[in-house]
């Protein structure tokens, strides 16, 4: 009898339970290998000063504060606009496997790496910042718009009058069905673009991030605190200042007030494309001699060394970090979600939690990790916590909206048991879908954490760039993108 009981128990383990168990298993294996040692430093004096900085923020310490704010918005706006101009046509031909593959590749490379590449070509020009946002965003738009447009009900198209031209059929029969979702998504991406634009400051673009980083590095916390508060307010108030009608005003202003763009030097671009990105042994050699046996073998040695010493260790560290962050994101989201939905909490608490969420998702992971590193010492732990905090902030924000729209029976009581029976099962598939999508994002975000010394692929890419080894950096980027494409593919396979 007990035997059959256990069998009966097992048969209740359904599809989502299996996926969850698999996820938790992967996370515990990765956590075992991750370097999560806490090295107790004496951070209290420094943290105290940091706290003081937030309590007494100095909004007048930054000389170019208004310019920095304006550039942050302007790069985001122009980046999104260009991204849309490129992304829309791509979305229409996204069915083509080649287009989908190219988009996946472009998307897989983080904005900051695109910026590092364009930095070599255009220098610290506005073009670098705008293109670094526009390119990956265009690839993302292409995929998401194509997904959204696919969901348009087929019947309208089926019953259209025979002989309707293709454009009218598309606009009336498909586009008009889905455009509210598309506009919603663009609005959400604008928030992301503001964050990306600020982050580009870390590599020297004249946005908020630039002043933020230098303020924190130099210990000017009252200045840094003021900048961070401004940044969170900027993102929190998007819906008041970024109304579609104002965009017609901002856009011309953004173009007009762009910092002067230095003349593009064709020779530099040509040199970058024809010499700098080649492996060192091929530089300056005529094309035909590339295929000589001893040169080829040198190239092979170079690639082999790079792959064994940088690509593989970087890839393993990236995956370990990403899985640990994913596991923590999963737990944090599940714990925080009940505090954020009207189905569990009174209005007051939800309002407070909204503010917490806003701060969590607005703070750049880079800064979070930077602060945590002072507290916990240099290991993977600060990066894991920073990624998890940021991503769970976003997940909770998106999931809470979903949770509030769940219809519950009239007898529903805000108790954890009723919530678990009536709400969670409704949300779980969507929740897991979002989590797996975030996994791809987390892997991309490990790139930035590489720049503060966590030895992910991003760390090696960054050091190759700073040692002016572009060929090495590009090889690493190709592997980084490949890893992302594979993860994306596997996640989709697992979910469908």
């Amino acid at each position, binding site marked *: 009898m007990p035997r059959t009981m256990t069998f009966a128990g097992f048969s209740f383990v359904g599809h989502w339970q299996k996926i969850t168990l698999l996820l938790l298993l992967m996370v515990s294996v990765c956590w075992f290998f991750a370097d999560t040692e806490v090295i107790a430093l004496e951070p209290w004096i420094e943290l105290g000063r940091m706290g003081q900085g937030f309590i007494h923020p100095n909004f007048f310490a930054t000389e170019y504060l208004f310019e920095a704010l304006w550039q942050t918005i302007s790069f985001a706006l122009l980046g999104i606009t260009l991204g849309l101009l490129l992304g829309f046509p791509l979305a229409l031909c996204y069915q083509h496997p080649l287009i989908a593959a190219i988009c996946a590749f472009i998307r897989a490379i983080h904005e900051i790496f695109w910026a590092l590449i364009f930095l070599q070509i255009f220098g610290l020009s506005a073009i670098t910042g705008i293109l670094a946002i526009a390119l990956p965003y265009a690839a993302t738009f292409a995929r998401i718009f194509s997904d959204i447009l696919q969901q348009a009900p087929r*019947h309208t198209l089926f019953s259209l009058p025979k002989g309707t031209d293709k*454009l009218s059929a598309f606009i*009336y029969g498909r586009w008009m069905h889905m455009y509210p979702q598309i506009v919603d998504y663009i609005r959400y991406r604008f928030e992301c673009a503001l964050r990306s634009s600020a982050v580009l400051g870390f590599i020297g673009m004249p946005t908020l991030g630039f002043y933020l980083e230098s303020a924190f590095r130099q210990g000017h916390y009252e200045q840094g605190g003021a900048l961070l508060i401004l940044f969170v307010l900027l993102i929190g108030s998007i819906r008041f200042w970024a109304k579609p009608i104002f965009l017609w005003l901002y856009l011309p202003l953004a173009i007009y007030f762009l910092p002067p763009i230095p003349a593009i030097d064709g020779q530099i671009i040509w040199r970058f494309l024809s010499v700098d990105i080649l492996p060192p042994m091929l530089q300056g050699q005529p094309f035909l001699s590339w295929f000589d046996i001893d040169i080829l073998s040198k190239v092979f040695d170079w690639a082999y060394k790079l792959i064994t010493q940088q690509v593989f260790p970087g890839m393993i560290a990236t995956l370990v970090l990403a899985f640990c962050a994913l596991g923590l994101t999963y737990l944090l989201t599940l714990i925080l979600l009940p505090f954020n939905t009207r189905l569990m909490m009174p209005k007051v608490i939800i309002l407070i939690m909204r503010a917490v969420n806003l701060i969590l998702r607005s703070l750049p992971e880079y800064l979070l990790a930077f602060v945590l590193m002072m507290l916990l010492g240099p290991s993977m732990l600060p990066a894991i916590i920073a990624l998890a905090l940021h991503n769970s902030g976003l997940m909770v924000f998106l999931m809470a909206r979903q949770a509030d729209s769940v219809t519950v029976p009239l007898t529903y009581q805000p108790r954890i048991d009723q919530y678990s029976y009536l709400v969670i099962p409704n949300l779980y598939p969507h929740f897991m879908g979002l989590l797996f999508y975030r996994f791809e994002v987390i892997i991309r975000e490990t790139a930035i954490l590489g720049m503060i010394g966590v030895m992910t692929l991003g760390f090696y890419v960054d050091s190759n760039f700073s040692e002016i080894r572009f060929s090495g950096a590009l090889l690493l980027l190709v592997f980084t993108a490949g890893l992302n494409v594979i993860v994306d593919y596997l996640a989709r396979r697992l979910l469908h």
Partner: protein
Amino acid sequence: MLSLVDIDLGYKQQIVLPKINLSFNENEHVAILGPSGVGKTTLLHHLYQQLSEQTCLCSQAKGLVDNLSIYHNVFIGGLARYSRCYNMANLLWPFNKPQQHISAICQELELTAPLHQKVSELSGGQRQRVALARALFQQQPVFMGDEPFSALDPLMGLRLLNLVKQAHQSVICVLHDAELALAHFERIIVISDGKVVLDDKANRLTLAHLSQHYALADTVKNAVA
């Protein structure tokens, strides 16, 4: 007008109606009846694909675009008559001429809501009349409907059926209201168990004939009573 000879109907591997033989003549009013899920819509969609050059298809309210106004939803029926530039411009700034035409159709259909109202804000019956208005605006000789009057009260349904019959030479409708079919259509086709079980002139049939082939909604009601 159209003949089906030994045609298999269905989606990919799943054949719902094997070896169907039917022919349709011009100037005929045909009602297709049968239990739900038997393949009536499949048959209708096949007919529509064969005759789409001269046919408008009206399926309850399935083809409506929720984010568009009543006016634009009806205008979709006229897309093929105008150039793409005209269609695009009309989306941004509705033209006067089609507006007058559409407003007249809506008045006939007793659709009194303002033309600029979004269809997502309408009731089921109003939505169905928007779908009918679109079909009328298409101005084709053949009308095909998939339960086009199901959400309307019987009197209104009858009035609109007469409007549809006036405006089209041929009418082919999938219906669930057997009485309406017997009284106002010339020919009745009943489909059941994957085949055509009855195909005859309506004036030679009674409800009793039909109920031999499938449980009519009314007979079920009577049985329960």
